[in-house]
């Protein structure tokens, strides 16, 4: 019986005007969006490789450890998934003077946007008159006059509605995917397809939620014109307002110290104060050194020092001792000030993390936010990936430090005049930062939270629709 109702719903919808309009829109919009995003991705890939080349060229010409850190900063490559999902855009980049304000004004269009805004609206357009419209037409009376349990009608309506929207969407997606497949520059792996499949699964649940919501509202109203008003108002709240408000509410409820203030304090500690401390310690150390090696008392240029060191083994030893011990002094100054700064930073990180968590939880009332988190985390374009990237770059940072330390030590063994900040080094064996996407299974696991919330919301709305519908007076 359920099959008959679903078939009836689908057949009813397919010939309707709204179905044709929505289908036509999807057929145009999805491939166009995918096409533009794919081109954008290809452009980004080209730029990324030329940036990498630029860094390699630089390293060949100028490589001193002192200045290297800023140049070889890890940076995430463009991911193939961005041909469909943009997620959190790194384009804005407020850290730099020349920022890019365009995405602030108009967030970029992507697949998540099409699903989250367009399909949810379409789902309500399809379902707002599911009950009230049939009541007005009188078909509800006829249908219920048969020996047909109401829950079957309800299930049939919601599933039928979901299918009539989801299948045209899949068709338009296929057109979009052809764009990706025929582009030789987009290299999609198995994991990308897996992630896409999961995102589409989430989209089905998302559409189901709005179909159920439409039916719920419809069965609470006597006229379909009132039902569409309520539907649209609720849609505005759920889709366009709650997610946007959530970070602001979270910052009110769980304030974090000002980043600008903490950064300033940190840079004072690790820069001016560090230098003062270091100079003070160095002066003490130099007095001590001069006492031990009177040869070091008079300052001479480096070239002279080098020739002198070659001739005079005692001087050579003195220089070696000076290099070693001054280095130790600066390390000590760095350590002391670094620890102080670390305390401040940790406090800031903790509070910001708490605020972000709260904002995320508040926003999860909205199915749009749940779906957005699900889709972006799965495609490595969301919050999870930011953490993952930070993890990778921290690990790389350790490796880099270890490398620079051992490399300097090795060079110093050969020539004691070598120091960390003034000697050119060959860094062809330096570990390069390689971004590796997190495994799909791990991404899936971390994205389960938002999906679970979306499922719970859908089931809740479905239950409410059920109770509403069995109490509906079909007259």
């Amino acid at each position, binding site marked *: 019986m359920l099959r008959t109702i679903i078939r009836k719903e689908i057949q009813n919808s397919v010939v309707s005007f709204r179905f044709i309009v929505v289908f036509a829109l999807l057929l145009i919009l999805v491939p166009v969006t995918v096409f*533009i995003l794919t081109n*954008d991705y290809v*452009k*980004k890939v080209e*730029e990324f490789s030329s940036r990498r080349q630029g*860094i390699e060229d630089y390293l060949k010409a*100028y490589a*001193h450890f002192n*200045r*290297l850190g800023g*140049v070889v*900063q890890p940076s995430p490559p463009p991911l193939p998934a961005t041909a469909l999902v943009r997620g*959190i855009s790194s384009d804005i980049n*407020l*850290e*730099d003077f*020349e920022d*890019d*304000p*365009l995405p*602030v*004004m*108009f*967030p970029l*269009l992507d697949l998540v*946007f099409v699903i989250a805004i*367009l399909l949810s609206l379409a789902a309500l*357009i399809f379902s707002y008159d599911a009950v009230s419209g049939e009541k007005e037409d009188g078909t509800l009376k006829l249908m219920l006059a048969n020996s047909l349990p109401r829950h079957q009608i309800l299930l049939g309506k919601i599933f039928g509605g979901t299918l009539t929207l989801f299948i045209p969407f899949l068709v338009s997606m296929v057109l979009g995917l052809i764009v990706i497949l025929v582009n030789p520059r987009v290299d999609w792996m198995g994991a990308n397809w897996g992630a896409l499949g999961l995102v589409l699964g989430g989209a089905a649940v998302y559409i189901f939620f709005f179909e159920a919501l439409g039916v719920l509202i419809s069965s609470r109203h006597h006229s*379909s*014109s009132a039902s569409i*008003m309520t539907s*649209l*108002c609720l849609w*505005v*709240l759920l889709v366009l*307002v709650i*997610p*946007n*408000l*959530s970070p*602001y*509410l979270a*910052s009110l409820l769980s304030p974090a110290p*000002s*980043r*600008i203030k903490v*950064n*300033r304090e940190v840079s004072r500690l690790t820069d001016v104060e560090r230098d003062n401390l270091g100079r003070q310690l160095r002066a003490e150390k130099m007095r001590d050194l001069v006492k031990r090696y009177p040869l070091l008392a008079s*300052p001479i*240029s*480096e*070239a002279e020092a080098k020739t002198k060191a070659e001739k005079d083994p005692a001087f050579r030893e003195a220089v070696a001792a000076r290099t070693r011990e001054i280095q130790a002094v600066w390390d000590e100054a760095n350590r002391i000030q670094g620890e102080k700064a670390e305390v401040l930073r940790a406090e*800031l990180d903790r509070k*910001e993390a708490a605020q*972000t968590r709260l*904002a995320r939880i508040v*926003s999860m009332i909205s199915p749009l*936010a749940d779906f*957005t988190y699900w889709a972006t985390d799965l495609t490595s374009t969301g919050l999870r990936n930011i953490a993952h990237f930070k993890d990778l770059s921290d690990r790389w940072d350790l490796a880099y430090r270890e490398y620079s330390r051992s490399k300097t030590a090795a060079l110093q063994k050969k020539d004691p005049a070598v120091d960390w900040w003034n000697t*050119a080094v060959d860094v062809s064996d330096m570990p390069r930062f390689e971004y590796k996407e997190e495994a799909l299974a791990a991404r899936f696991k971390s994205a389960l939270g938002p999906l679970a919330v979306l499922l719970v919301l859908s089931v809740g709305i479905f239950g409410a629709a059920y109770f509403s519908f069995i109490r509906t007076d079909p007259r």
Partner: protein
Amino acid sequence: MIGTIVKKEIAANLLSYKFFIIILLITLLLFTSFFVLYKDYKGRQADYELVRAKPGEPIAVLAPNPLSIFAKGLDEAMTRSFEISPIGIDVRTGQKSGNAVFAFFPAPDFVYVVKVVLSLVALLFGFDQVSRERENGVLRLMLSNSVSRATVLAGKWLGNFLSLAVPFVLVTLIGFALMNLDPGLRFGSSGTGRFLLLVAIALIYIGLFLSLGIFVSALTRRSASTLVILLLIWTLLVFVLPNLGTLVARQIIDVPSVKALSEKRTQIWTSEILLQIGEQRAVNFRGDGAIRKRHLDAINAQLNALEADYRIKFDRLVRLAKTINRLSPAAGFVYAATELAGTGIDEESRLKSEVIRHKDAVLLEMDRGVKEHPAFVYRYRTVGRVLAEGGLFDLAWLTISLILFFALGFVAFVRYDVR
């Protein structure tokens, strides 16, 4: 006669469920938006008090703009602190970047609420004016009287516009008045004037969507199809066109990414510094002021050239993106509103060029050994200049679209079969 029709429309609206729920929604949204962004502004104001430049410091930092409560725009980018040092401008961001959820969703300010929600609401007021009244038979009755169709349409437009605009303006003004109770928040006469202009633009924008609603309503026979068509046009105009337009512009104009630029910048200055160190060591260990100076100048020259090139390209991108996006009235509204509030794209780029000019002046002083630097002063463009530099165009474009849609609606309505 027109007065009677306006009165009838308003009375019908006042009694309807639609009116009740929509006014409830916009009241709720506007007040929430005012409150939340007011709090946000206060927070940023407190931050500013902490980081504002002390007398003589070579730091350019702008106080948050009170009008950003209504049009947040790029205010966060504009209130970053720009610290000037011999190797360029060091940028410190504010607080907001800490919470990553901000990056997902646009700010729910007044401009957002008007752009998205009020346009939708205006369509909902307009969509049933012709087709629904035909279905009810009211239209037949009305037109059987000796009243011209032009009068009917004008009366409908005015009646519905007033029933939406009056509560909207009332709520907005109450919100604004409440904010003025805070002595720490000063809009001044210029701020109030800009705010009122902002409300006026919002009204034009709302009127435009109302006309569009009536136009489509006069094209269709059934109100259900009117609604479907309108909602899809609305998604296209408000969401798809402006957001896709920026991407399309990027396809056409090649602009390096911000990341590429910053990498290039690091490479330039570190390599120059290394060259400098090399030269200094060749002379003696202590260093030589002239060498340092020469290399710092080289860094500045190269960075300036790099950034000027980027800015030229980026300006071209912005212009093209704006032109494409203006196909959608939502984009025109956002541009006009943010520029008026002083948080728009043009204002931000003007601020940046002022900062660069300030930097050059400060660097000259640093060369002369001056330790105390004059404070950075930025004056927002006057309303007249904002209007002259594109604001008027957007305004005119919105007004023309409003009139155009109304005229089209009239043509369609005259030819409408009311049976």
